[in-house]
């Protein structure tokens, strides 16, 4: 299978990397937004392959990592209520809240379930009419359409025991914040391929015009990422700033219109806090008032939460690309995937977890 072998062929990867090294006249600083891309870069050692020619900075594109601590605490509070079944994607269970995590709540007898799809949470609501089923709906633009469609389905069926604890984030406002920061060093971005599969990349073309920074939509495989990096370096070396698309097998300029329409119908844009970064204006989604019956924040009176991050955790700086995970004094010792201090050590897409899995040898323990 020629096509396949080429795609996985280390020789091609090395050739692409050599080409990038040759064409780079200075160490360009590039950021991949998506945690899935961070994982691929670490897994295949692409950063090492590129040597000094390119410095890769890891972005905040890990929804588990940026879900606010208060929101984790709110999910924990809901899961402890009698009569509530809290349903979540698997990664969320080990994310530390202020005092505990959902996994411990489950082990103490709380009804916490893991699903792969929000539709499975809807099934639970149908089969347990006597319980309130709350789906912990976290995600970027990639995942929001699935959550929107699930709410529309629940509304069609008139289900009165299903709701979302919604914590959705949007990528372009976060890029705008990073680019507007006086500390910004990033000279080019790899835009997240699956976010753009849904949204297209018109918003990224706007960012390019606003900040004169090159942005290339990239896929998730080693050769996808190397190609995207090569496209960025070519732009930077030529003094160009354009929105380009490497991930053409999935992404179009317009994106997926039916998915966008579902999100637009159910959610409205809101200000959103990002764990480690802080509030970003107009960077989140919440259910529209007409879907209040499916909004856990409106149904349950959870109250105010006082939440504090562990002081040693530097995830805030890691998520903004200002520090590497290995700069943290707790990395690999007091903070591991089994016993994480911060969210980026939990999710397989978190930068700290990716470094722990593939770069532990860099740390002298």
């Amino acid at each position, binding site marked *: 299978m020629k096509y396949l072998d080429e795609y996985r062929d280390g020789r091609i990867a090395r050739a692409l990397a050599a080409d990038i090294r040759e064409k780079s006249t200075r160490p360009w600083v590039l950021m991949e937004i998506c945690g899935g891309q961070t994982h691929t870069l670490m897994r295949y050692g692409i950063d090492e392959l590129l040597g000094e020619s390119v410095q890769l900075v890891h972005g905040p594109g890990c*929804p588990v990592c940026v879900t606010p601590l208060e929101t984790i605490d709110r999910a924990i509070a809901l899961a402890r209520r009698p009569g509530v079944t809290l349903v979540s994607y698997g990664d969320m269970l080990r994310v530390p809240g202020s005092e505990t995590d959902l996994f411990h709540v489950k082990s103490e007898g709380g009804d916490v*379930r893991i699903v*792969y*799809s929000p539709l499975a949470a809807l099934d639970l609501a149908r089969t347990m009419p006597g319980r309130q089923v709350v789906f912990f709906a*976290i995600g970027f633009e990639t995942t929001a359409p699935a959550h929107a*469609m699930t709410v529309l389905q629940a509304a069609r069926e008139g289900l009165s025991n299903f709701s979302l604890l919604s914590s959705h984030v949007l990528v372009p406002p976060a890029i705008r914040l990073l680019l507007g920061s006086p500390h910004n060093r990033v000279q080019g971005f790899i835009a997240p391929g699956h976010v753009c599969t849904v949204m297209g990349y018109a918003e990224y073309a706007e960012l390019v015009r606003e900040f004169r920074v090159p942005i290339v939509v990239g896929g998730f495989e080693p050769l996808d990422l190397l190609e995207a990096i090569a496209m960025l370096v070519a732009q930077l070396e030529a003094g160009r700033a354009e929105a380009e698309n490497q991930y053409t097998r999935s992404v179009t300029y317009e994106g997926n219109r039916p*998915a966008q329409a579902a999100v637009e119908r159910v959610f409205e844009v809101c200000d959103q806090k990002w764990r480690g970064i802080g509030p970003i204006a107009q960077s989140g989604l919440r259910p529209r008032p007409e879907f209040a019956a499916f909004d856990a924040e409106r149904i349950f009176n959870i109250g105010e939460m006082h939440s504090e991050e562990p002081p040693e955790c530097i995830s805030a700086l890691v998520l903004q690309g200002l520090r590497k995970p290995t700069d943290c004094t707790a990395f690999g010792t007091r903070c591991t995937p089994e016993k994480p201090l911060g969210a980026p050590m939990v999710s397989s897409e978190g930068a700290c977890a990716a470094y722990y899995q593939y770069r532990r040898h860099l740390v002298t323990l």
Partner: protein
Amino acid sequence: MCLAIPGKIVGFEERDGSRTGRVQFGGIVKQVCLDFVPEAALDDYVLVHVGFALTVVDREEAEKTYALLESMGMLAEDLRPDPAKPEKSS
């Protein structure tokens, strides 16, 4: 989280008023909502994220991506059946 895996549509069914496909990932078949890809046809490959198809992918591209993901051992992790509900189709 934004991981999306290409699979092949091997059948259709109507489920709870949604157009649902039976989508094959290697040896596993799962039910996938096709409401976002009304153009999807039998034998098409769709890119699937949390039970929803987000786009129709070119077949050659899909097979190579799938093989790569499989080699990364990520497929098994992402398609682990729901503890909440045993998969009928697997």
